[in-house]
């Protein structure tokens, strides 16, 4: 790291955290704790991966295909190389190792050579002395494309000639549960669609790759999974994994969009070829082109029930457009199918889940991971079913709510916590906002639908309320050998925790400190930079880091605690069981021998440390009927949305969302609120504005001018009730909390718009024309 300026990755973060902490108080588990990176972030001193700088560095940039489907006849880079200031240009010919990469399966070219399969696919990359020089160099590369008709419709792709040697079906998952012929007297059926949502994290992809003296690469990058990136880079560069060293740069949000490699291989290859550090920072447009999106979906569902609303049967066909390459489509399909009935007892089910390859942009992980798509559909079905049975919509959900001991669609018995009825009741019990006539916000046009556009007068507004419930698994599934590594080191009275878990904004670094304080009774816990020097922590995804890496950190800290207590007990002739760690001291809580030893003194010239591996329970693959114990745990939430709608213009303001969420145990209340409010904002976005539009497979709106995400004037007031039922196997009893807020918030908002307008609204995002009824 010697070539990197000192403003990059150093221990300044830790010093500043101490300064911040001294003013804001400390926290162990269960109470608010300040973020160690909060102080640097509010002062603009936190180093995001795009803030890095190195002596002699050059700028990398990517050339991307404008066509969704084309054969490449030739690529001529000579004019680009001839430009003054251009250091190097690379194409597929220059990739020394594997020419393919991929998160789960290596099916995506590092650079396209014979065939381009989506608009935005990388074709070449340049390094130059200035971003503008790099841009001119890209323009000087001549690619001779033979444009071919793209396959853009997933149904068409199922029967079209193969777009890739691996075929056009990423996965077809069938679930058969119970009696396929069972039917209840009440039947509801619907087809639902979701547009392509984008993670739209605020900090575009960025990294700094530096060639090392040993022929390897040092890469500081924003990512969700350092080790998976490392392995893909090493394969592509033809290097052993230990010669590719990754350090986490400051990450400006992720939400699934950084699980796949973006610029990691390109920057490393450019650095290797140039022999100089290469900085790459995506523009917003390139960010939209350069990472996977949430799968658009078309879902058909049919439910039957007894007259009292008890679900008898469920059938579904779920088609997710995975785009040109596999990414995580295989597992998104599984999640979608396995949780497609919602958290409702469903004795008989026939489900087909499909993930299909097309010439659209690749889709993969985004917060909610398959559960978002199905929840929009199953919750619309639940409302239909309640109406068809003539019973209250909340009551229907309660009547069918799963509880521990019930079975998932996969036949797996839920043996942990699953308080579905509790989240429903608690959500319904939260207070409603002031009625429209008395709502002070609605007295100002800014607080009505249309907001700053002043479109809507008070009398033009109607209000609606909608309710939705969702659930999703936590952690990896289907037999994946999921683990996380962590170490704890106590020396000089200072606890240092090391873990490769990617802090992407969610607050894992805060949790690490809380765990250290809780277990070791100290104030100062240093969180070391995340890098590949330690074992993998797995991805920051799947609601898994609090459980997996939190578990690893706890295990490491407990080991150090045990060593300390054993050592002190031995030295003082005390019983270990009588000792405790409190306020930075080892003290005897009971027993005959008085002990009071400061950890700082104890560890002045010796250290205690351990490195550990943590795993969750074994999971198993699904069988031919989609049955098996494939999952570790599930978490649920309910959302009630209140919306104001201007039906004549089709404009919406989401007024309030109330939610109760199954969290196991709240470890940091303020951070938990932030996860819920942030997730709800993304759910609101999908409900009423967010969609990556494609024209002939090309993203039409890859900018923040036209890919709209909620502003401060678009988000509702949020009311939260925590349902704390400890999860027996989870460290601290805590479930991951990041995903449920984004799952059922979208259907709740759409249900509320339906209630206000009477329109069917079977597609999200709901557009003004859909509400007005001009959708043709």
């Amino acid at each position: 790291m010697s070539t990197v300026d000192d403003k990059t990755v150093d221990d300044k973060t830790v010093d500043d955290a101490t300064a911040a902490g001294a003013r804001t108080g400390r926290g162990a588990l269960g109470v608010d704790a300040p973020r160690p990176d909060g102080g640097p972030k509010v002062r603009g001193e936190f180093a995001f991966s795009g803030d890095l700088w190195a002596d002699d560095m050059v700028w990398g940039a990517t050339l991307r295909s404008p066509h969704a489907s084309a054969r490449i006849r030739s690529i001529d880079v000579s004019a680009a190389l001839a430009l003054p200031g251009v250091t190097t240009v690379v194409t597929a010919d220059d990739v020394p190792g594997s020419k393919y990469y991929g998160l789960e399966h290596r099916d995506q070219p590092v650079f396209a050579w014979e065939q381009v399969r989506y608009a935005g696919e990388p074709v070449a990359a340049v390094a130059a002395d200035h971003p503008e020089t790099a841009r001119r160099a890209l323009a000087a590369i001549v690619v001779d494309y033979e444009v071919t008709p793209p396959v853009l419709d997933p149904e068409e792709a199922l029967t079209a000639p193969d777009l890739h040697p691996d075929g056009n079906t990423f996965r077809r998952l069938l679930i058969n549960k119970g009696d396929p012929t069972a039917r209840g007297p009440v039947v509801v059926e619907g087809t639902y669609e979701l547009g392509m949502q984008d993670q739209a994290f605020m900090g575009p992809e960025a990294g700094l790759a530096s060639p090392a003296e040993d022929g390897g690469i040092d890469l500081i990058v924003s990512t969700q999974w350092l080790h998976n990136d490392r392995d893909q880079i090493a394969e592509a560069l033809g290097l052993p994994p230990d010669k590719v060293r990754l350090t986490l740069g400051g990450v400006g949000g992720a939400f699934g969009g950084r699980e796949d490699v973006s610029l990691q291989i390109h920057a490393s290859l450019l650095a290797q070829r140039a022999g100089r550090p290469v900085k790459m920072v995506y523009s917003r447009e390139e960010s939209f082109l350069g990472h996977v999106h949430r799968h658009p979906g078309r879902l058909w569902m049919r439910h039957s029930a007894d007259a009292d609303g008890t679900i008898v049967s469920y059938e579904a066909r779920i088609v997710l457009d995975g785009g040109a390459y596999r990414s995580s489509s295989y597992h998104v399909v599984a999640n979608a199918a396995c949780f497609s009935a919602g958290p409702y007892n469903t004795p008989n089910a026939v489900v087909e889940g499909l993930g299909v390859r097309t010439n659209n942009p690749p889709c993969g992980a985004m917060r909610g991971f398959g559960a978002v798509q199905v929840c929009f559909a199953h919750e619309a079905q639940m409302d239909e079913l309640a109406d068809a049975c003539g019973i209250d919509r909340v009551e229907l959900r309660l009547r069918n709510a799963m509880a521990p001991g019930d079975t998932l669609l996969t036949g797996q018995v839920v043996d942990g916590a699953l308080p579905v009825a509790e989240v429903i009741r608690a959500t319904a019990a939260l207070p409603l906002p002031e009625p429209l006539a008395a709502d002070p916000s609605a007295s100002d046009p800014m607080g009505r639908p249309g907001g700053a556009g002043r479109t809507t007068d008070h009398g033009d507004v109607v209000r609606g309320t909608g309710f939705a419930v969702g659930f999703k698994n936590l952690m990896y599934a289907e037999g994946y050998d999921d683990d996380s590594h962590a170490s704890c080191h106590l020396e000089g009275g200072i606890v240092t925790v090391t873990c490769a878990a990617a802090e992407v904004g969610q607050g894992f670094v805060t949790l690490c400190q809380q765990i250290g304080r809780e277990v070791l009774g100290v104030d100062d816990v240093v969180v070391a930079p995340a890098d590949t020097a330690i074992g993998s922590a797995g991805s920051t995804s799947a609601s898994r880091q609090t459980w997996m890496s939190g578990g690893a950190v706890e295990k490491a800290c407990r080991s150090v605690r045990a060593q300390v207590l054993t050592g002190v007990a031995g030295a003082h002739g005390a019983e270990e069981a009588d000792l405790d760690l409190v306020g930075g001291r080892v003290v005897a809580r009971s027993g005959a021998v008085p002990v009071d030893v400061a950890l700082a003194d104890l560890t002045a010239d010796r250290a205690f440390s351990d490195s550990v591996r943590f795993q969750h329970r074994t999971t198993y693959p699904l069988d031919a009927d989609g049955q098996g114990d494939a999952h570790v745990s599930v978490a649920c939430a309910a959302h009630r949305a209140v919306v104001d709608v201007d039906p004549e213009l089709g404009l919406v303001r989401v007024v309030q969302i109330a939610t109760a969420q199954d969290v196991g145990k709240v470890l940091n209340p303020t951070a938990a609120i932030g996860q819920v409010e942030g997730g709800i904002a993304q759910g609101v976005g999908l409900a009423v504005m967010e969609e990556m539009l494609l024209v002939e497979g090309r993203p039409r709106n890859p900018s923040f001018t036209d890919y709209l995400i909620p502003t401060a004037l678009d988000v509702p007031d949020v009311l939260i009730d925590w349902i704390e039922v400890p999860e027996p196997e989870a460290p601290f009893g805590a479930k991951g909390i990041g995903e449920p807020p984004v799952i059922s918030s979208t259907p709740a908002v759409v249900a509320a718009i339906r209630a206000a307008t009477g329109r069917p609204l079977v597609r999200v995002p709901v557009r003004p024309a859909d509400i007005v009824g001009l959708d043709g």
Partner: protein
Amino acid sequence: MDVVLPTTVDEVVAARVEQPAAAVLAGGTDLMVAVNAGATRPEAVIALRTVAELATWRREDDHLVIGAGVTYGQLLRSELAELVPGLAHASRTVGSPQIRNAGTIGGNLGTSSPAGDALPVLVALGATVELAGPDGRRSLPMVEFATGPKRTALGPAEVITGVRVPVTGGAQQYRKVGVRNAMVIAVASVALSVDPGDRRVGVGLGSVGPVPLPAPEASAFAADAIDWATGTLVDPAAARRFGELVAAAASPIDDHRSTAAYRRHAVAVLAERSLRTACAPGAPDREVAA
């Protein structure tokens, strides 16, 4: 010279003559977007920030001459908000506070986007655009200034010095539909000016044609429908007919932001509401809380 920072309009014109290829930079909210994206690579720039005349406004009898460099923020926060409430309404819908502090009315004219928020108001007010060039100064009616999407009647070495708008004392409205409650480009917008002195109703439409459009038939209809003694509609149902006539004046297209059908529908609704509010019994709606 890379960046020229002239201090007078004459210096701007001289710089334009000397460097015809130089980009003219007002608030930067359009030009810099293009530069940052690599869509424009200026060889030289004439920045208007330091031209005192452009940054000010003055009253001439029953008209205002507003300098091209006056920002949306100034239109919103200064005395101008009382004198031309329609421009204040429009300004408040523009982008974000940051954009309103940078973007100028002259820049809106120079870019001449069909979605430019100040432009329908200028159409509705019957504004003239004030220009200066090597041959001196001239004025053009707003409807003649904008000639197409991103095209204007601005001469090669000319500069926009400002706009001339009437102070009507009547109700003015600007309503804009976007698919978000703030910071959004207009999907459709309607500006309305009810001028009790001239007994004239002005209409300007945004994002429903290649340029901001007037709606002359609708204007004439509304002028007849108002009881000018009270400022109210003789028959409240006239507002709906007014909306239909406004929609008939629109020539919208389908694009990624919306459909032609929705846009036509939206301007009808916005126009109806605007007239309904402007002619409601009571004071004209000039509220622009900043």
